[in-house]
């Protein structure tokens, strides 16, 4: 009993001092950004592969929704565990928005019929990629290598297909990074550590 009370006291006094902690805003913010990022990445990544299927746009929508669901779950889980990665994701989304918008402005100058709505869309895609930049970059690199290899190895595998694999890799990498961040946050979660500490004291 005494040991239990001591453990409870330790846990309660330890939590405010922990750097990693979830909050309501982090849960909502993480869920919202995860949903947005996952849905956009799922959509972008499936555009070319799905254009080779009978389902076409229905396939894109399905994978977009799937990406959104994964992002939503991972974002909620991440926000529940820790605020800091959510803040980092928003910061990355901001950078992505700026970079994407700048790229959109360049495209507006060189691509026919590329209008202001397209510039905004480029920025919004940039935000989705930026919120999971590390995973998206790794995925893009891996996808590019696989796409290039298939392009050289299979004659009927043409350049747009190779680009499609690279973009799909970016999307998968980006969505995966939300899951990976959640797993990492769980590993580093303080919620379990005080229990371990209290257990030792109880012994």
């Amino acid at each position, binding site marked *: 009993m005494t040991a239990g009370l001591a453990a409870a006291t330790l846990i309660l006094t330890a939590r405010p001092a922990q750097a990693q902690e979830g909050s309501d805003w982090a849960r909502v913010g993480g869920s919202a950004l995860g949903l947005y990022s996952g849905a956009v990445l799922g959509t972008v990544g499936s555009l070319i592969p799905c*254009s*080779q*299927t*009978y389902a076409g746009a229905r396939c894109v929508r399905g994978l*977009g929704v799937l990406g959104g669901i994964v992002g939503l779950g991972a974002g909620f889980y991440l926000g529940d565990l820790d605020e800091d990665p959510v803040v980092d994701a928003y910061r990355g989304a901001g950078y992505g928005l700026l970079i994407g918008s700048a790229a959109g402005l360049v495209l507006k100058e060189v691509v*026919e019929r590329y209008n202001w709505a397209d510039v905004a869309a480029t920025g919004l895609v940039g935000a989705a990629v930026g919120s999971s930049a590390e995973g998206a970059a790794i995925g893009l690199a891996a996808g590019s290598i696989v796409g290039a290899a298939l392009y050289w190895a299979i004659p009927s595998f*043409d350049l747009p297909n190779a680009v499609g694999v690279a973009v799909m890799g970016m999307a998968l990498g980006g969505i995966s990074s939300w899951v990976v961040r959640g797993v990492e946050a769980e590993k580093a979660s303080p919620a379990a550590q005080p229990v371990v500490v209290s257990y030792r004291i109880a012994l």
Partner: protein
Amino acid sequence: MSYARCLIVIFAASLGLGCAMKHEQFLLPGGRACPTPDAPGIETDLSIGWYSPIRSGDQKALAKWCTTVGPAVIDSLPTGRFGSWQPGDSLAVVTWNLHGGAGNLLEFIDVELGLSCDERSAASGPHPAHFVTLIQEAFRRSETVPSVPDGPTIPPPLTEKPRPGPRTDIEEVARRCGLSLFYVPSMRNGAAEYEGEGEDRGNAILSTLPLSDFIAIELPFEAQRRVAVAATVHNSERDSIRVVSLHLDVASSLLRLLTTGNSTRQRQGLAIADALLETELARAGVADSSHEARCYPYCSNEATPQFNSSTIVGGDFNTWSVNETVIKHFNREFPNSPPHDGQPTRGAYPTDYLFFRRGNDGSIDLMLGSYRRVADSYHSDHHARLLWLK
């Protein structure tokens, strides 16, 4: 909890953004006349069955573009003496994107189809085999093309590389060759005027045979106004074949691409299939509101509607792969189509196709092995595709 409600709202919004755009078509009861039915001297041409998208957003955009082009052209009877198409005679069907005045159509008809359009040789030379050419990006220069200020509904003129020979518009080609013509402009070819004449461009059908049953199908608006054209040719036994010339958009805007799931060509292709189905059902006397009619081609458990006449569809699908969604749908809609040889027709891309559906009577059929890409591009940025029917 408040954040749970927020999440539901966000999720519902994301699903709403991903909603599919409708592709269904309906027959405009009063027809359509561009630039406007109210323009003096231009009346609605009721000899054309006009199909238009049911979605009001598409209709508004298409109406704006319609005000910038001239009226359709119908010369239903060829003026040349080509004789009738006898059962068992072959018929060449060609699809070709002319790229405005770049493609040398007169030379093409001479070399590939055996009809010299020089007046002297046309009068004395042998009759060529009958043919139907399904043309995309044909241009017409005429005073009937309205004078309009430059703006978002006026695309820039096609960039044409200089070539030997005159730049001949589609009406002039039909006149010089004595061919029947059905031409419906889709859009302007730039805002410029040439001594009071403007230019528009669109799809056309040219033939040595009389044309009838004219149909214009305004495609759902994606990036530019597109109008597919269809007509019917008959042999002397009154066996008929419907011929269709179409041109799909290359791409829509990035925003539209993301919110519709890259459905640009799929939507436009399905719209053409839908309008053709409506037409065939009307011809066969099937109530177009029946469930069987409405669910086709997605109701594979239902009996597939049978069509009385054969149909051949040719055009520039602007695809970068033979496996694209719209091609898969057309292969299903037109089950008797010849297999694609994989050869590109524009740069490295297989953009141009011919599809075929045999009618119930089966009297007109493909000549096996005749489907091919024409090797010479005749200065266009596309190679033509050609097949023979018998």
